[in-house]
């Protein structure tokens, strides 16, 4: 296809992506260097028969005027990145000097909002991704062994958790697991602890969200693995059966190597999706004990008094850096393949 024709065909979609994906990233980058204005204060002298007092109040008029003049806020450089709510360089230095043991230091650092969210996000990715691969693969294997006639409805039932939006999926589970729901109430009875509830324990909340993640993402892994299983050639499998290979050996040495590229694909996609975990935290109302990077950004953007654009943007930029680190190995590999292919 000539370049000119390509240009006109690609222009609409390219424009949409540049304007609404490319530019916003740049806009986020710019915003992250600005911080909202401080409130302008003034001294008010108030006199009554017993004497005069000086109090400091916010000058509403001047504050709103300065906000109107420079809506982006004041230039802050990398100030937002290193403040207490983000990388907290100063605080970490202080903790390092003040704490006696390393455990204590780690404890202090993981209480800072950014690191707390980072640790939750990474824990979520670390537990959900491998389990999704495993469960998806097992479901695919066992559904593949079922009579073809009843597979359709079974597949439909299997993919249900994936097609609902995460907020709805987590709500549906939350209503069952909550202390007043069917599972929660039965657990209380079983453990003989009337105060046992999701909200009371941080570990329990984390486990619930991770289980939700596995429940929600496994169907995707299943669908892809199931399709890949249909393409496994029959001859080597039959040869292996005649040679006396066990079922496990067949899976390990014939099926897995065949679908290996697909496994990397699913791992990559689910890693990307898990890194942006956010809606389940709202669905499970787990803000108290579990915060993710995306949730921090959301929280800044729905802030009641004044939207913290700078703070949200700084967290966004660091999230993008995290995504870049996750994607780097894949990109480097693709680039190498591309270069050798030429």
């Amino acid at each position: 296809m000539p370049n000119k024709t390509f240009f006109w065909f690609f222009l609409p979609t390219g424009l949409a992506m540049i304007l609404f994906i490319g530019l916003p990233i740049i806009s986020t980058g710019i915003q992250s260097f600005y911080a909202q204005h401080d409130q302008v204060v003034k001294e008010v002298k108030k006199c009554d028969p017993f004497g005069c007092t000086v109090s400091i109040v916010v000058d509403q008029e001047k504050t709103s005027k300065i906000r109107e003049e420079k809506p982006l806020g004041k230039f802050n450089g990398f100030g937002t990145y290193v403040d207490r709510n983000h990388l907290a360089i100063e605080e970490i230095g202080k903790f390092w000097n003040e704490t006696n043991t390393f455990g204590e230091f780690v404890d202090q650092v993981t209480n800072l909002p950014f690191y707390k969210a980072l640790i939750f996000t990474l824990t979520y990715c670390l537990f959900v991704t491998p389990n999704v691969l495993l469960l998806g693969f097992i479901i695919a294997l066992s559904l593949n062994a079922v009579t073809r006639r009843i597979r359709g409805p079974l597949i439909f039932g299997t993919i249900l958790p994936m097609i609902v939006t995460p907020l709805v999926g987590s709500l549906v589970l939350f209503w069952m697991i909550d202390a007043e729901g069917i599972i929660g109430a039965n657990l209380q009875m079983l453990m003989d602890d009337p105060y046992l509830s999701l909200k009371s324990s941080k570990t329990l909340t984390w486990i619930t969200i991770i289980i939700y993640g596995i429940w929600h993402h496994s169907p995707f892994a299943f669908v892809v693995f199931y399709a890949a299983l249909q393409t496994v050639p029959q001859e080597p499998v039959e040869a292996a059966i005649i040679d006396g290979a066990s079922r496990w050996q067949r899976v390990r040495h014939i099926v897995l190597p065949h679908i290996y590229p697909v496994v990397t694909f699913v791992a990559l996609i689910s890693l990307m999706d898990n890194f942006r975990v956010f809606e389940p935290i709202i669905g499970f109302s787990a803000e108290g004990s579990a915060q993710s990077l995306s949730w921090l950004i959301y929280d800044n953007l729905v802030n009641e008094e004044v939207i913290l654009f700078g703070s949200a943007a700084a967290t966004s930029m660091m999230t993008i850096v995290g995504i870049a680190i996750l994607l780097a190995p894949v990109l480097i590999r693709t680039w190498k393949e591309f270069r050798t292919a030429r």
Partner: protein
Amino acid sequence: MEYGLDKRSNALKIFNTTFIIVWLLVACFPFIWTFWGSFKVRADFFSRADWWYAITAFNTLLETGGKFTTDAYSQAWTEGEFWKASRNTVIVTFFVVTISLFLGTLGAYALSRSTRNYAFWILIAALIFRAMPHITLVSGYLFPFFQLQIWGILPTTIVVLVAINQPFTLWLLYSFFKTVPKELDESALIDGCSYFQAFRHIIMPVMWPGVITAGLFSLMLAYNDFTVTALLLNQENHTMVPKIQSYLGTNQHEGNLMWAVSAVVSATAPLFMLVMFFQRQVISGLTAGAVKG
């Protein structure tokens, strides 16, 4: 594997069947339970006293006189203004799907017929864009949209959702266009068609399965979106998913939590029907990028 060579032991068969039944229960029961519970009053579905009430409908019987009640639905749809939310969802979904498909088919066709290096790099860039968490993009939109005074209205959200959806649509349609033989449009070009005519009259007619799949995924993205719609629309224009969340926030009313339950069922039911109808396309779409590529 049905050649009689591969004999499964009975133990394995039993294990397999049990596993599938357990998994299906885990996957489907929450939805069945919520559907069942949406016809009860709050005191039954969220019972402090005894969860068994949700089945015997003790309080529902007391409060409404019947074992099932549709109060939650009628209240949510009228008083809770869920009708408005669903109307907004229909508008947003319709426009996102049509615009996405229009832009996506043009772009993906060009990508699949180009032999240059830049086509490869565009696809890689699209993959990177696909990886961006939507909330980071939203944090980039908010400030400029406030300044341009286009925040809160449906058209802005539609355009944003179309753009966010493009990378995935491009990849999906690209892999579908690759399966259409090049000879088909080349012969049309020799006969004197322009590229656009070849695309319009020769390629599109054989591309319907791919277009339906891509359309379904655009529909699911627009229909299910929470991040963009919750932050870019004002109260008045909220679509279904942010509306459900707003029912959760205001717990003063006795009925509101049940509104959320009935709203969840109302929002999920059409989606399930659609997927039941188009199951084959959904699965082919999910695997197109993985297995063929």
